[in-house]
């Protein structure tokens, strides 16, 4: 690893991350105090009650279930009344609320995923935000038109999102930050400028993302500084600017990004020009699975096709204004909790986070306009990074003969083979100028929502707080998905 001067890197690479919303936001002009606001129910039940209060009822929650709006006018009112173990059960309606959750181990569930809708009306910030509460499960509802995120967990030990729909939100769709022991499953994210799904700042994360669909976002998945028993499996990432993008950077804690396992996903056509997109999504555009400074990841048995740049690319991320030094390799195993206690070094210039020690095996990759599988850095010897490729089905690679140069479980080649047919990731910077600009998430031509599958037995299933997640995944049983 090396340190570069900012000036020297001004024309060099780059990639990724998450974070800043490159598009305009409805709350750009928010006042200093911007506490979540609520509430007005547009219930499909004609007996709409007065907003903002919990309906007087001596038995509210006595059975462990708080019904909205029958027992509490608002979701926030029900959440505030809930005790650990309770179920907040929401009837169909449009709820103009930004809900904050600070109580452990409650379950929030819609009776119908498609008609229980939290709507931010491009004014409220997050649909449901879980802050420092452990074991909160959210199930079977939709969050749309929020200026920040549809569903957001932060600082949680135990979280689960199941059968969720996040649509047209101004930052992320479904966002798990600084949280561990999680499960995101059977969910859908569309129309966000950053990522439809995000898991970040955790190591070990001990989390699973299973059977989700992410489309028409800046990034399908972004995972800054996330890893350690983090599985992204059996999911579909399509029609985003870029598909699956794990990435490193010191603008969040717990760097570098490492030890994520990406298996059995369907990743295609991530060249979408008319989505909302943060700057790095524009930079990463046209790539299926792109490690931007990630290390020790496993990318296996994914079906990846139709990308303007790479199907599976391992590239560096330039951080021009870092907040710490690059962690040496012997610190990659330091857990997040420990790293948080360590004072940062004084950075002296930009950092180049290289993708290293990643295993790319058994993927089926095709129709990539630059290269199906690829690796690059800036002025470094690629043979020293410890990445390897094995058993992939592909037509093109950069450098040429990549599987021969760096086969897994065999010695890496040295010599000038690494200089033939290289990726030249620096040239991507020039492509930014030509790339389609971000489209405001509020007005982007994100396809209208179609009905999404409901969770079984939403009305009768008992509360199920996120105390038993992540669920076990039989990785060995996952095969390359069929082409749609």
């Amino acid at each position, binding site marked *: 690893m090396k340190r570069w001067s900012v000036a020297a890197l001004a024309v060099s690479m780059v990639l990724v991350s998450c974070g800043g*919303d490159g598009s305009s936001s409805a709350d750009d002009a928010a006042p200093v105090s911007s506490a979540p606001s609520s509430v007005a129910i547009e219930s499909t039940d004609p007996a709409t009650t007065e907003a903002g209060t919990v309906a007087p009822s001596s038995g509210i929650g006595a059975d462990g279930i708080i019904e909205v709006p029958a027992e509490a006018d608002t979701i926030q009112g029900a959440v505030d009344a809930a005790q650990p173990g309770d179920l907040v059960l929401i009837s169909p309606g449009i709820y103009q609320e930004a809900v904050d959750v600070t109580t452990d181990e409650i379950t929030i569930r819609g009776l119908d995923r498609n008609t229980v809708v939290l709507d931010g009306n491009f004014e409220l910030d997050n649909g449901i935000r879980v802050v*420092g509460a452990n074991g909160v499960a959210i199930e079977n509802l939709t969050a749309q038109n929020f200026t920040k995120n549809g569903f957001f967990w932060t600082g949680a030990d135990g979280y689960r999102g199941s059968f969720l729909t996040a649509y047209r939100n101004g930052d992320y769709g479904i966002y798990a930050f600084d949280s561990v022991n999680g499960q995101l499953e059977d969910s859908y994210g569309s129309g966000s400028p950053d990522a439809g799904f995000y898991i970040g700042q955790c190591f070990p994360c001990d989390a699973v993302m299973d059977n989700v669909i992410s489309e028409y976002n800046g990034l399908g998945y972004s995972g800054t500084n996330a890893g350690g028993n983090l599985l992204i499996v059996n999911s579909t990432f399509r029609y985003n600017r870029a598909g699956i993008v794990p990435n490193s950077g010191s603008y969040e804690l717990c760097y570098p990004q490492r030890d994520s396992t990406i298996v059995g996903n369907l990743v295609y056509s991530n060249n979408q020009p008319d989505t909302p997109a943060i700057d790095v999504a524009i930079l990463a555009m046209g790539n299926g699975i792109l490690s931007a400074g990630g290390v020790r990841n496993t990318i296996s048995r994914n079906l990846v096709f139709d990308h303007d740049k790479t199907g599976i690319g391992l590239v560096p991320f330039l951080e021009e204004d870092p907040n710490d030094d690059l962690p040496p390799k012997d610190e990659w195993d330091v857990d997040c909790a420990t790293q948080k206690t360590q004072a940062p070094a004084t950075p002296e210039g930009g950092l180049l986070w290289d993708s290293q020690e990643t295993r790319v095996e058994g993927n089926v990759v095709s129709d990539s306009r630059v290269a199906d599988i690829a690796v690059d850095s800036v002025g470094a010897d690629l043979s020293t990074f410890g990445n390897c490729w094995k058993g992939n089905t592909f037509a093109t690679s950069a450098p040429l003969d990549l599987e021969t140069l760096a086969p897994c479980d065999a010695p890496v080649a040295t010599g000038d083979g690494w200089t033939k047919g290289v990726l030249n990731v620096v040239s991507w910077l020039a492509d930014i100028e030509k790339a389609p600009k971000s489209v405001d998430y509020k007005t982007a031509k994100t396809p209208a929502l179609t009905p999404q599958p409901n969770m079984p037995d939403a009305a009768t299933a008992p509360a199920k707080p996120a105390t038993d997640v992540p669920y076990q995944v039989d990785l060995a049983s996952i095969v390359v998905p069929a082409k749609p």
Partner: protein
Amino acid sequence: MTRRHSLVLFAPLSLVAFGLTSGCASDPSDVGAGPNAGKAGAPNGVVVEVQALDNSFRPEALTIEVGTEVVFANVGRNDHNVIPQPDSIQGWGVGEAEFAPRAEYRHVFDSPGEYRYICTIHGVKGKGMVGVLTVTTEGES
């Protein structure tokens, strides 16, 4: 909104923080709203930095002496804000419109006390993206 300056670091050992020399001149336009807005320029010559990363303040807790100028720097890629918690000392802080990535907000803390604050985008009272400044009279910290 202003762009972040190039910062010269020093580290007061008692602070375990990211200190700045007072050579970083204050610009009244850097500060946000509130009755004390514009009180920049450290009377005691000490300037320290609190970073707003995505999504945490670093350091989260800091003890300073009266007259210290604190520079809150958004070094993340997300929007943030710095808002006094409702039951804490008011009259300072910056909203997200003035605190986008690369922006900074400066304030001189000239009264002793405990200043608890929050990024309301990424935290709630006492949880998530929160921080506290303990301002002591001279010689106490």
